[in-house]
């Protein structure tokens, strides 16, 4: 089963766009233009690409504060994402969400959730509605290794398994929570895979830095879900190149470990593989150049976008558009 070259180029493009976008976000944070906090998925792009590319438009993605890449790869406009990070009025959430809450429902990017674990049952619920309505949608939920120790993980995976829901739980195991290693806080080796049997699920581990491998696992899990065979719990092994958030230098990580993983950069690996398999370097260069141009344009557009209008402070608490709690 050979993956079509266009598909693979789409994954390459997705990874490169995410990479440039997040590098820029980092620079803008250091310049004080992105405020608050920001959690980068630099180094984890292959997971996002492998899962996003084979999704159908009405499939649903749930992710975390480390969700730039997932949201972008579902097709959310880069301008609006950048604007949201910068708190501008072009922001995808009108500036109300910020870096940790990127959402584009029109593209199936059903939200970025910033309380660890909370979105797992939500993703399961979306899958339940898909099952109930017979829509053939799948719901994909990304989360980190550390998230496997919170109660909501357990409740959601169990319920999804019992109800055979079309939801894919994807643990991006990047070896660390914030500043503490996952190995320090679990009694098994694999935070997600070694828990799968507790829910009657298969133990699935994939190289999260290999876009092709991720793609294959993703497609298999989607097929299973659409066939009514229930959820999958997948552990993707990967690494974040930077610290947990903001300006965290990530010093709690051994140098050798960081170096080793930087050598296993998913984009470098994929570029090499594609070219060695006959894709013209120029094709990939063009993708990179386009991505960079897109990031530049998004940055420019967002810099030029005004801050949110004060009037929106009081809108959209309720469906009537307002925030009134009284008459």
């Amino acid at each position, binding site marked *: 089963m050979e993956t079509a070259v266009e598909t693979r180029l789409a994954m390459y493009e997705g990874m490169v766009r995410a990479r440039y976008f997040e590098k820029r976000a980092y620079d803008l944070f250091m310049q004080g233009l992105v405020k608050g906090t920001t959690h980068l998925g630099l180094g984890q792009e292959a997971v996002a690409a492998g899962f996003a590319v084979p999704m159908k438009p009405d499939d649903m993605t749930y992710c975390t504060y480390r969700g730039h890449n997932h949201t972008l790869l579902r097709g959310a406009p880069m301008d609006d994402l950048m604007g949201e990070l910068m708190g501008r009025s072009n922001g*995808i*959430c009108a500036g*109300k969400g910020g870096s940790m809450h990127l959402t584009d429902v029109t593209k199936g990017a059903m939200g970025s959730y910033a309380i660890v674990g909370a979105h797992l049952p939500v993703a*399961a619920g979306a899958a*339940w509605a898909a099952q109930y309505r017979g829509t053939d949608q799948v719901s994909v939920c990304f989360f980190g290794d550390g998230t496997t120790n919170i109660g909501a993980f357990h*409740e959601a995976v169990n319920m999804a398994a019992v109800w055979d829901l079309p939801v894919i739980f994807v643990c991006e195991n990047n070896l660390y929570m914030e500043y503490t290693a996952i190995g320090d806080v679990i009694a098994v080796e694999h935070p997600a895979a070694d828990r799968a049997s507790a829910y009657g699920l298969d133990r699935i581990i994939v190289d999260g830095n290999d876009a092709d491998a991720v793609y294959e696992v993703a497609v298999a899990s989607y097929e299973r879900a659409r066939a009514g065979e229930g959820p999958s719990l997948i552990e993707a092994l990967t690494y974040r190149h930077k610290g947990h958030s903001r300006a965290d230098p990530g010093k709690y990580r051994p140098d050798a470990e960081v170096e080793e993983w930087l050598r296993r950069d998913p984009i470098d690996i994929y570029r090499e593989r594609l070219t060695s398999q006959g894709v013209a370097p120029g094709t990939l260069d063009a993708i990179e150049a386009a991505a960079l141009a897109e990031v530049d344009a998004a940055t420019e557009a967002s810099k030029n976008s005004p801050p949110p209008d004060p009037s929106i402070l009081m809108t959209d608490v*309720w*469906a009537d558009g307002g925030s009134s709690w009284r*008459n």
Partner: protein
Amino acid sequence: MAELSYRDAVARGLAQEMERDETVVLIGEDVAKAGGVFKTTVGLYEQFGPKRVRDTPISEEAITGMIMGAAMNGLRPVGELMFSDFLATCWDIVTNQIAKTRYMTGGQVELPLVIRTANGGGSRFGGQHSQSLENWAMAVPGLKVVAPSTPADVVGLMAAAIRDPDPVVVFEHKKLFAIKGDVPDGELVDTLGTARIVREGTDVTIVALAAMVHTAVEAAEMLGGLGISAEVIDLRSLVPLDTRAILQSVAKTTRLATVEENPRLVGWGAEIASIVAEEAFWDLDGPIVRITTPHIPLPAAGELEDLAIPSVDRVVDAVTAMSR
């Protein structure tokens, strides 16, 4: 017009909405085959089948999280939390996720869902199964909060809650499950945010909710015998809040008392008192009095629990004292 118990009114309200809209579904612990531990969902499983009325594991975060996700994808789900005390076990989902998502996404996400839960004391269940927690929900921007006091209101407000495009928490009062009342025939749909003047009066306004409405009305009758004419307002919903009804009444009576089942501090009565102390200060002819459960967990023994929850006598005494 049929006489119905408050308990049966819950099922009737749910059935009415499930009949007209097949995106309305109900999940919770023991809600299906068993008809609910308070028998509030009896018959629904039989009428609507296992796809629409589903038992869950004991996983309150999953229950509330799942209805949130389902509401994002085309359903109008109703989730039952067996006791309102269990709101605490899924409070993150309720407050940080359900309540905030519309705002945080700039209005992208609509969450037409209902959380139903059995609330309140008086059943000798002890501190972990007796709380009145409407004020917890009221404190959270993005939640609507309903607490009916009669069978007819249960049906109409449940229907309104289910049809509402925003998340609504419906507090069903355990002590009221057995009461009966007339419920009009046919489809009933009430309006959230409308208080009801249960009893008119001219000397003092007594604002109450759920079981305390009955306490307040009884007290008002006794106060009448003592020459004090009390107006009793049943708030029915805390969010939206019918401040107009309260302010109008206080403008007439010049006095305000609130009767709350929740513990003393930062209950909904404090909100009402503060609104009146700010907006109707010049209407007032005397202090605002809050009658509440003391700031203690609820005890199990009947004699103690009855002392804790505001009684008719306590309301009569407090209102008499403030009216001197």
